[in-house]
């Protein structure tokens, strides 16, 4: 009974936690520009993220190490410096993009420019982390995150051509804009396979004191939770393909994306879009902000934990405070939130091998995982997808920038 409850909670968490500014922006862009043609990329990214989230939970449960602890210990400080810096930079940009997402949602509803919202939003995020506990943040994010299911409902209301949607699971090349096609594919993968998820998840497993007994729960949460989360992502893509693609609207700004739900739901659709964007990004910003403090504190061996009072882990609390307010300054400065989002997702795809390949080495180390170490299947799946993403990224990003 307790187990069932835990799995349910875990799944709720991932639904709330999975959808963030990157997933929404890239899915809307994919649907608007290439109709259903990029669905296969969402599927591929989901498979990879399921494997990786399961691994980070398994690592924490079996070895009692967070991913960061294990990486520094196994590879040494000098080697670890590279993924550490890469992760902090990417996390910082993603955090700014998530804050931007919340600000845009507020701008959509109030008409007040997103730049004015950046500091109040940063303050609200900080206050929640400062005062809240891990479980409040986890459960709050999940509960409110369910509003994003509006996209899935919209798909069913709009009766898409299911045959065509299904065909999207098979990779095909578009007749036009191939560079852009690969660029969006890279951004989708970067958005789905976000490294912060693994660090965050393994830290959560340590905070919840997981042991080998929790491996079953871990598998369930990873597979069903991440799978369900990407279901919502697909919902966003399909709705966008049904509403924006036929009109020839491609996405240059979030304001254009805001129209996707007005067709099935009218005024409520507009509100639901703003609420989904705002809540998903707020939840993700909490997670990314916390994640940065986790990564720094664990890399340097400080005491850390969201369940502790700030006075018990002052360095940890000050770290997320600085990161959150610094990231919000990018929005105050008026950086375009959508550009920042897509850029940070593409950048994530580039740094993935740096972060993931050492992680895989760890997952095959008997000293950490004993008999629970990786099998051939999970190794192969992850390596293939990560290497493919990297190759796509280094080819597509320069081409996209040069406009080739």
């Amino acid at each position: 009974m307790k187990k069932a409850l835990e799995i349910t909670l875990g799944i709720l968490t991932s639904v709330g936690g999975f959808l963030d500014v990157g997933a929404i922006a890239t899915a809307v862009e994919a649907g608007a520009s290439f109709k259903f043609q990029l669905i296969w990329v969402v599927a591929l990214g989901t498979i990879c993220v399921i494997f990786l989230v399961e691994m980070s939970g398994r690592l924490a449960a079996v070895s009692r190490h967070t991913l960061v602890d294990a990486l520094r210990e196994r590879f040494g400080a000098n080697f670890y410096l590279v993924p550490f810096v890469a992760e902090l930079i990417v996390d910082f940009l993603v955090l700014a993009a998530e804050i931007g997402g919340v600000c845009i949602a507020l701008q959509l509803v109030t008409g007040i420019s997103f730049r004015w919202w950046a500091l109040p939003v940063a303050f609200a995020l900080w206050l929640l982390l400062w005062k809240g506990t891990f479980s409040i943040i986890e459960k709050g994010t999940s509960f409110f995150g369910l509003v994003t299911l509006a996209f899935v409902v919209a798909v069913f209301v709009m009766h898409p051509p299911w045959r065509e949607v299904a065909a999207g699971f098979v990779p095909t090349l578009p007749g036009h804009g191939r560079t852009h096609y690969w660029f969006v594919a890279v951004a989708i993968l970067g958005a789905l396979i976000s490294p912060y998820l693994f660090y965050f998840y393994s830290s959560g497993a340590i905070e919840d004191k997981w042991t080998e007994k929790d491996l079953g729960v871990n598998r369930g949460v990873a597979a069903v939770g991440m799978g369900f989360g990407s279901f919502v992502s697909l919902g966003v893509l399909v709705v966008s393909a049904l509403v924006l693609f036929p009109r020839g609207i491609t996405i240059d700004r979030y304001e254009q994306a805001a129209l996707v739900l007005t067709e099935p739901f009218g005024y409520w659709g507009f509100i639901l879009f703003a609420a989904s964007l705002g809540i998903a990004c707020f939840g993700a910003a909490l997670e990314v902000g916390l994640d940065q403090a986790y990564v720094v504190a664990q890399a340097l061996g400080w005491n850390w934990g969201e369940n502790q009072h700030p006075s018990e882990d002052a360095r940890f609390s000050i770290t997320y405070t600085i990161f959150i307010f610094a990231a919000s300054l990018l929005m105050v400065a008026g950086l375009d939130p959508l550009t920042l989002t897509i850029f940070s997702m593409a950048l994530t795809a580039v740094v993935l091998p740096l972060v993931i390949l050492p992680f895989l080495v760890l997952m095959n180390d008997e000293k950490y995982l004993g008999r629970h170490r990786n099998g051939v299947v999970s190794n192969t799946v992850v390596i293939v997808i990560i290497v493919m993403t990297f190759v796509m990224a280094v080819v597509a990003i320069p081409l996209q920038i040069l406009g080739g």
Partner: protein
Amino acid sequence: MLVLALAGCTRSPEDQLKAELQTVTSWAATARMVGEAWLKGAVPRAYTAQTLLAAEETLQEEAQTIQKVKAEGAAIGLQTSLLDRTQSLGRAVGQVRAAVESKDDQALGQLLEQLKGEEQAVKSLAGGARP
């Protein structure tokens, strides 16, 4: 899309014009969709005004970008007509915005019809194929 704005250094004038054409079409369609949603009461006023303003400004910027393309031969024809269409779309969107701001729903309905016509005229420049 976004990064395309940085483009233009390595592409042929024709490709560049096609990319601009897509942006123009996209923003014209956005403006019309926002206007229609406003008529149906599906979007708030401030959002409508802001998005229409963004569309108008983008179209004006596009007109300038198109003007700067160094087209040769057959592309000159495309450049001239695209520039023409873009400028007139910008004006049309401006009128739509004025109608929203003065809450003139009747005029807005007519203006949106007009906008639809202009939008299709631009789309036809792409030569039938989707941009």
